[in-house]
């Protein structure tokens, strides 16, 4: 049962990833990307890691893709099609993709996966929250604060760009 669901999700991820980069209609590409991200969330649900799955759905499907779609809605007309890719570009991309796939396959094949008989360890949302704000060993308070500052800077920047000046 789980295996069947996994293969369906994996197939969806591969299929829609390819469609995302090959589609010439930019909004369709964004929607294929949405399907890829939702199938990834499905994988997390399959692993019983519900928290990460819900984060994936909120941040990527409900946040990033909505922002992309929003930008497309504001800028692109419905009959607009991206120009086809030139030959040189296609060849260079193919070589790069082949190198990337080769690296991943080499790394995965070289890793010695040891199956374990132990049951999956449970997780707790409280534990996630505590370790996110803990400053002890394996605490994440520094990355958390750095990212907050980064987001604040991005927000200030966005407001400065959008702000109207009086002498304009």
């Amino acid at each position: 049962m789980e295996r069947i669901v996994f293969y369906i999700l994996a197939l969806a991820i591969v299929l829609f990833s390819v469609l995302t980069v090959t589609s010439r209609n930019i909004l369709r590409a964004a929607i294929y990307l949405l399907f890829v991200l939702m199938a990834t969330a499905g994988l997390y649900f399959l692993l019983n890691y519900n928290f990460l799955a819900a984060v994936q759905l909120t941040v990527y499907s409900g946040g990033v893709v909505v922002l992309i779609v929003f930008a497309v809605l504001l800028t692109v007309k419905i009959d607009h099609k991206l120009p086809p890719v030139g030959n040189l570009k296609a060849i260079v991309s193919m070589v790069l993709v082949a190198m990337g796939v080769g690296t991943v396959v080499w790394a995965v094949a070289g890793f010695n996966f040891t199956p374990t008989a132990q049951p999956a360890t449970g997780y707790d949302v409280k534990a996630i929250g505590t370790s996110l704000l803990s400053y002890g060993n394996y605490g994440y308070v520094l990355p958390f604060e750095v990212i907050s500052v980064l987001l604040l800077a991005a927000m200030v920047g966005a407001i400065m760009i959008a702000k109207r000046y009086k002498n304009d």
Partner: protein
Amino acid sequence: MYNFSALTQSIHQYLSEAMSPLGAKITEMAIIGLVLIAFVALSVMGLVYIERKVAAFFQLRVGPNRVGKWGLLQTLADFLKLLMKEHIMARNADKFLFNLAPFLIVTAAFLAIGAVPFGLGLQAFDINIGVFYISAVSSIGVLGILIGGWAGNNKYSLIGALRSGAQVISYEISAILSLLTIVVLAGDLQLSAIIESQRDGWWVFKGHIPVLISFVIFLIAGTAETNRGPFDMAEAESELTAGFHTEYSGIKFAMFFLAEYVNLFIIAAVGATVFLGGWMPLHIGHWQAFNHIMDYIPSIVWFFLKTGGIIGIIMWFKWTFPRLRIDQLLVLEWKYLLPINLVNLLVVAFITLMGWHF
């Protein structure tokens, strides 16, 4: 109090004896799916009828009264009419996205309704992050509105989609933050645990004024998230004909219509579960006799009474207040609701820390 898990357990036992574990699992999933679809179809028909009657009484009219007794069959007749209508496709529309949009909205609504606890032991999917899960899956629904508005190649629907996108993204923050106040108080995200924490009184009574504030904010944000009046800028029929679903006809329009009422039900159900105790009867502290009498009313009746009450309040909003402008709407969210909500969350966290709640 009747526990529905006895019923579901007996069905599970019967199916396990009759077929293999895999077959039993698939059959159970099919049964749950069918029950939910039937429930959604019936409750949406009921809600449409109630809304038309409520609107009529607010406007001193009679409302639907010709088809069946008191017009009760009016929505069924309308539904049959919608089923038989022609599918119209605009010439330069993006066919794939145009057809996809209604399904996205309905899928998001069904994903969310699976986690709603209808009664004691009557919950299809009691996930350990309940509140977070419902807000996560319902955030996909806005994509259906955005895509549907764009793919129809119509300026009115594009404007409706843009307005609705800005609105839903903004008000989602308020809805989640107001739910977080109860998560802080209850100390858990799981819906059954949140209900269990209200055994000695609903949070709206136990949590003092901050919880009342967050309940009001939740009602406002929920109304805005479902694109209902006075925040129905996405369709605003007097300025945008029908907003994002202008180009839709027949069953596809019916799916948008269905999703709107399912979302109304989900918002009301989540509000009832988190703030008003869901299926938990009205219990007051240690009044044993009173609590015992209240337990005689079945859990499912409590759930539908509370949900119906919240739906009634939201309908009351819609037919009382005039529609806002989009800039007023965004100012209300970002300049008033969000700061109030953040301070409120801080106050609730302090109350929880000091143990001042009942």
